Each structure stands twice: as structure tokens, then as C-alpha cells.
């Protein structure tokens, strides 16, 4: 099996590592870097639990190979905020009923991050559309939509 050396920045930390050509980005993050906040759900790009940012844009890491991240910057939920330095999206999800079991939450946070970076004040409809690539079985989405709305308001000081 062919292997490649990739240079990838993950949550601000530079890695130069050899990976098999067919290693999925999701498996690279989870199995190799032990960044298990990124979840594996359906393995087919439907559920969005494995969503991460590559250069700020949301991708499903089960549909990307690790080698595709070569020379790029990956952000996972662990890189969004930790400890007392949480991202407004994280605090909003905590306060507005944005999560229940939490398995889909990292993916939703990354998808919402991408949405707000493109559209800082989305309407409810735009939020729903923007998150339609991610599945949640617990919340019925209302708490998630409310959280994103709340985070957008916080981020724009309204």
C-alpha cells in the first residue's frame, strides 16, 4: 500500500506524518491523533457527525482522505474552544438546548461555524438549510437552530 508524507496543521499544531494513501481524514484524526471529538456515524457522508473545517470550510471527514488535507489547516471541535475559552457557538449550544446525547454536536458546531463565517446573520430558514447536511435524532433541531441564532447575535454584539 502506498504511503505519503503529509504536512497538515490541526487545531494550530503542525504535523508532518506518513499516512497510507487510502486513510480517511476521519480515521487519521481519530485513530492517529486521538482527536475523538470528531465522530464517525454513518461512514457515508449522510449524518455529518464527522464534520470538520479545512481552511475554514466544512467538510465531512469520512468522505475526505488524509492526503487531501496536505498543506492545509484542519479545525476539529477540540480546536474550537476549550476550558474557559469557549466559542460563542459552544456556549450557545449549552444554554439553548442545542444538544442532548452530544454525538452529533461536534459536527453541528463545525457546520454552524462554516455557516456563520459565510452568513453572519442568517434567518431561521437559512440556518435550517445550512445545517441540513447534519442529522440529529434527539433534539428535533429546534434547540440547535435557537443556539445558532443566539450565537450569531452574541458574535455581532446585538
Amino acid at each position, binding site marked *: 500500500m502506498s504511503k505519503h508524507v503529509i504536512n497538515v496543521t490541526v487545531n494550530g499544531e503542525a504535523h508532518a506524518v506518513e499516512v497510507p494513501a487510502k486513510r480517511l481524514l476521519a480515521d487519521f484524526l481519530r485513530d492517529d491523533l486521538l*482527536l*475523538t471529538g470528531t465522530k464517525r456515524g454513518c*461512514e457515508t457522508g449522510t449524518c455529518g457527525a464527522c464534520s470538520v473545517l479545512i481552511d475554514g470550510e466544512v467538510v465531512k471527514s469520512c468522505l475526505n482522505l488524509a492526503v487531501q488535507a496536505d498543506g492545509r489547516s484542519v479545525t476539529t471541535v477540540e480546536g474550537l474552544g476549550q476550558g474557559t475559552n469557549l466559542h460563542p457557538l459552544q456556549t450557545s449550544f449549552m444554554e439553548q*438546548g442545542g444538544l442532548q446525547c452530544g454525538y452529533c454536536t461536534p459536527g453541528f458546531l463545525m457546520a454552524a461555524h462554516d455557516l456563520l463565517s459565510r452568513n453572519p446573520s442568517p434567518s431561521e430558514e437559512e440556518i435550517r438549510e445550512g445545517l*441540513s447536511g447534519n442529522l440529529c*435524532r434527539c433534539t428535533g*433541531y429546534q434547540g440547535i437552530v435557537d443556539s445558532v441564532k443566539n450565537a450569531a447575535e452574541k458574535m455581532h454584539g446585538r
Partner: protein
Amino acid sequence: MNKLNEYAVIGKKTTKTDAVAKVTGGARFATDIYLPNMLWAKVLRSPVPHARILRIDTEKAKKLDGVKAVLTAADVPEARYGALVLDMGMFARGKVRYIGEAVAAVAAVNEEIALAALKLIEVAYEPLPAVFDPLEAIKPGAPILHEDLKSYKTLFERTDKAMTGNVNYQAEITSGDLEAGFAQSDYIFEDSYEVPKQHPSYMEPNSTVALVDSDGRLVIHNTTQRPHINQAILSSLLGIPIAKIRVVPCHVGGGFGGKNRTLTEPTAAALALKTRQPVRLTFSHEEEFTSATTRHSGVMVMKTGVKKDGTLVASDVKLYYDCGAYAPTPNAVWLGAISSSGAYRIPHCRVEAYSIYTNKMMGGAFRGYGAPQSNFARESQMDRIARELKIDPIELRLKNCLVEGDSLHTGQKLHSVKVKETLLKARELSGWGKGRVPANRTLGVACGIFACGGFATSGIVRLNMDGTATVATGAMDMGQGLRTVMGQIAAEELGMAAEDVTVIIGDTDSTPFDVGIFGDRGTHTAGMAVQMAAQDARKQLVEQAAFAFKTTPNNIVLGGGKARLASDPDKVLDYKDLLGGGQYKKGGPIIGKASINLTETAFDPAIVRGAASRMFSTYTFATHIVEIEVDPKTGVVRVPKTYAVHDCGTVVNPDGLRGQIIGGLATGLGYALYEGVAFENGQVQNPSFLECRPPTAVDMPEIVFDTVEEFDEKGPFGAKGVGNVSVINMAPAIANAVETATGVRVTSLPITPGKIVQGLGQLAKEEA
């Protein structure tokens, strides 16, 4: 009664205690465990629906580099397990009964080698005739799945029809005089309804990491709703004493009933015991759709007698639930039977309920448990009756609905009955009959009843030296927020802040027994045990304070983490000073405990035969009204708005309540419109979220949500559950709205565009 205003913590916004871990990626799920020397397990599954196993050859697989163990039925004890019918072993033994059944398992140094090894296992099958339809399976001469069925151990009182042919569990309910009831009726309605399997579609797959620890004990890290039952099942399957097994559940990535199962644990455990290395077994997404469990598919035949004025008089119901090749929870049909008379008073009733084997994947527990099926039938037929009798559907429901003091058809006398209030409030919110709905939209209504709470549980509350408390409960938080709710209950009782209570859940070494979280028994029943344990601890704390103040216990007031003298409120001691330094002057450390079973009264055998349980603690009610749009050309149904009114007792955690109810509506919406596991000769045709999709954020209606609060005397601070009843009304409400909008009555789920277009074509033909 309801003292919501007096509470400090109950009913107040309380952030989930696991929220930080879940928004930072720190919450550890079973799939997130990586241990040194961990092996990866994979399972070889049957490609045929029904066959005799002639030979299994594992030699080539065992010789593959990196393979550490290969197991088949020949390598494990011949033991079977199940909730009521002990019919399933760890691996197929002698026969396979469905496509996807476990035949062998491999543990290897990585996933790739484990998968390669599966391909090297040779199995010779001799095909047997198979049966896929429950109504075919109960006909004489149908292929029999379990030839030795009568010899299987069961944990219910068998009726004559139970455990014969392909019927495993069977129950009958008879109340009043059915013949006389039909004789008194002016109209008789007889309809048949059909529902498919629905997958629970939790996002996290089934997963277990098993290992043998340094003391030689078996340790299980898994995703489960019932750690203590897992422990007991592993004990019986592997022949290991319960005390030598520790189940340490991880965060659960959604359960909804689907993880009230034991699927990956025994196989991972057997491989760990064989190899003495940690073993991870995680289901693939496809295995979830072939080899986990789903809501039971089934056929419901419903004959109902009605007076001219709409009074329900008699009901004869037959439920045929397809449990697949094994029956891990055949009592779904028992819950279906309980809910089958709807939330109505019907004096003359008969229900015959059957759980039937077919050569398909297993039916198991899933939110609504048995009731989404029977309530689809009941509430669809109620609208047909309303239409024929020209009575408003809500008026018909109000006329017949159960009220305080009524008994169910099972003979159980009900308390805390609020269905009427939910109907009235939903009617008001939706503007039903007031012409407020836009011209292109149509309303549809359904209400329902579900059993809430019961069975054995226990709780322990320890007070710590620093004035904090540690609660231990075997009851699991699957995401619904039980951990937080338990903390609120203990905090309220102990007079401390919610953040001063830490809740330990699930770990069988540190928590006391709970039978599993299902049937709205988390907040209601396990919560009651925690409240009682906290009361026990509180009593001891009061005694400690009385001792410290040299007064009597009735002169002590607790609150805000302090004890004070009632006679002199300026005399105050912080809990940490009362408990500090381990100096317990009055007795030893404070440990509160409670052990309860809220299901103690048996049903009357003259009314119920084959009961799968004793009487449930209480019942919950809800009314849902949907506002839909139907495209008459394509048959596509949209649900832009839904009004949901629930009877939930005292609200403990408002955000948690709202989230659980809206989540239930989403599952009900999927059941109504999209989700249905499709089979062709026993083979699942749509084994993925892509093909069998749960609703997304854009599919969800705007929810107008309200509650009818009531004090349920059997729940902690008067609380009831809402996990199940929130699921059971969406499908019939949408079917009812579709008929009002189009004239097409869809009697099977899901309500696909194709069925509507076909129905419209049929109507056009009839008119022509």
C-alpha cells in the same frame, strides 16, 4: 399539590451537567476508547434468511497473520437470552434465521485484517423455506423458525397460543361483553392498518470495548440503556458470577430504546476472554440496519362499534407484530395492546396481541414502544368514524376521552388523567375550526396514551465532607438529560445548589441496580428512588444538625447549603461545617438509600391473560395537531406547523422537556412520512440514512408547544415522563390531515407521495 413556585431547583433552567464535555469533544463515547494492545473485532453474518448450517471452517481465517481469535457457536457456552423469551444465543447454532445473523466473530490486530479474515471463513448452508410476512407465518404449514420453541424458557404466563408455531409472546385483554357491545352499536367500523419497521437511528453505532482487568474481572465499556441487565446477561451467557463483571457505560450517543439491548457486549467479551487482550467491536452502519433492532412492523385489525351520537361502545382489536427471527422484546405488542383502545373509555373490549417470528431482522424497543403502531390504527379509525358520523374529530375525541377515575380496558384504574385538557388546549392553540389556517393548509389531530414508569430501581446519595453530594444511580442518561435531572431532584431535596451535586450513572461497581431506562421510567421511577434516597440523607443531616445545635430535629431548617435553627434563624451552620473533617459526632458518614419497585399490582387474570408486566405506575397523555400542505400533482406532503400539548406532571427541567418532546415529534414525523425499512426476501433494501432517512432541520415543522401541568403522586415532585407519548401521534394526525386535504385515506406507513397519487387516481376513476 403542585408547588412549582416554592422550588429552588425543580422547574428552573439548569444547564446539562455534561454540556461542556459535549461541546468541546471531551465527552467519551464507546467508540472513542483506544487501549494498548486493543484488538478489533468483526462479525461474519448470515447471507441467507433461513438455512441449516452444515459446516463452518475457520482454519484459514485463524492462520491469517494478525488474527488472534475466531469464535463460533461451538466455542461458547450453549446459553440463550432475551427479555421474556430466552431464544437467542451469541452465535447462530445449527441454523441461521435471518440475513445478518451472527455466525462467527474474529479478533485481529486491526480492522482491515479482521475484515479479511471474515472472507476466509467457509460456511456451508442448506437453505430452508423462509417466511417474511407475520400473517403468513401464523398459517398452518408455514416454515417454523424455532422448532423447539415450547422448550424455551419464558418469563411470562403463557397463554394457549403463546410459544406455539411461530407465535412467541401472546396476550389477551377482555373487558365487558363484546357481543352485547356490538349489538348495542348503531355503526360498526372495521379496518386494517399496516406499518413497517423503523430504525431507532441513534447517531452512534452499537459498540463495546471488553477487557480482562488485573484482578481477572471482565470489564465492559459500552453504549447502553441498561448496564445492570447487561451485567446479568453476560453472567448467564458466559457462566461468570455477576460480581466478576463490571459494566462501565460511556456517554450514550442516543438510545431511544434501541440500546436497551445486549448486542455487541457478549461477542466482545468472549473474544477478550479468549485472547486476554482488550477487544473493540463496533457495528458498521450497514450492520446497524441489518443486525440491530427496529420498531416492530405489523398489521392491526380494528373493529369498533359506535352509537349514532359518536359514543364508542365496543372494540375488537387484533395486533400482529412481526418480531423478526428472535424476540428480544416481544412485549412491544403488550404495550401496543394497552394503548390500542386509545385514550378512550370503551366499555366492551377485546384485544388479541401476537408477537410473531419471521425470517427478518429483529424487532426491539424504540420510542413509543408498541404504541405508534396501535395508535396509528386507533386514531386513523377515529377520524373515519368522525367523517362518517359527521362529527367534528375533536368533539368525537372529547366525547369519549378518559377522565380522572376511569379505568383502562385492562382494568387498571387511572389517576392523573389529562387527555381532555390536552385536547382543549391544542384546539385553542391551533385555531381549529376557526378558519385561521391558510387556504393551502389542512389540520389533522390525534391524541394518545402511554404507560409511564415502573419496575425495580434504587438510588444512593452520599454527603461529602465539603458539603457536596454524590448521587449514584444505575439509571442511564442516553442524552435525554437524566444525569442533570437526577442532580436537580437531589439538590432540591437536600437544600443545596444543583452544581453541588454530582451524579454518577451506570457503572455497575459504583451504582445500585436499575432495570434499564425505557418506558418513561427515568425521571419518573429512577428519579423517585433518588428523591427517596435524598430524603433519607436529608433526615440524617437534620439529625446531625440537631446534634450540633443541641436541639431537636424538628427545630432544624435546611436550605441554600446551610442548616439553621427554626427558633433562631441567625444560628447557621454550613453543610461543610456539619460534615467537615470526617468528624461525624452523631453516627457515621451520611449515606441515603432507597430501593423501590413501582410495578407491584398484578392485572386481574379475568381481564388480562398473558400480561407481560404488572400494572404500570401511571400514564401520560398528549394531543398533537398538524398543519399540512399536500401537492396534488406529486403527492408530496409538507408539515409546516405542529401544535403539541403534553401532560407531563411537574416540569423538572424545562429545556430538557422541550427538547425531548420536539425530538419525539421528529421521530414521529419520520415514521409518518419517510422512514420504513424495506425488505426483499428478508434482505434489507435501504440499509443507510441516505436511503432510509430521518428528518433533517428543513423537514421539521414550526412547533407550538405547551404543557398541561399536573402533580403525579407517584413521580418525584409530581413529574411524569414524555419520551414515548411524544412519538405516537404524528403518523395518525398526518394521515387524518391528508384525508381531509385530498380525500385519500392512507392506511399504511410511511405516507409516501406514491400512495397519495395512487389514491387520487383511484378517486378520479370512481368519480368518472
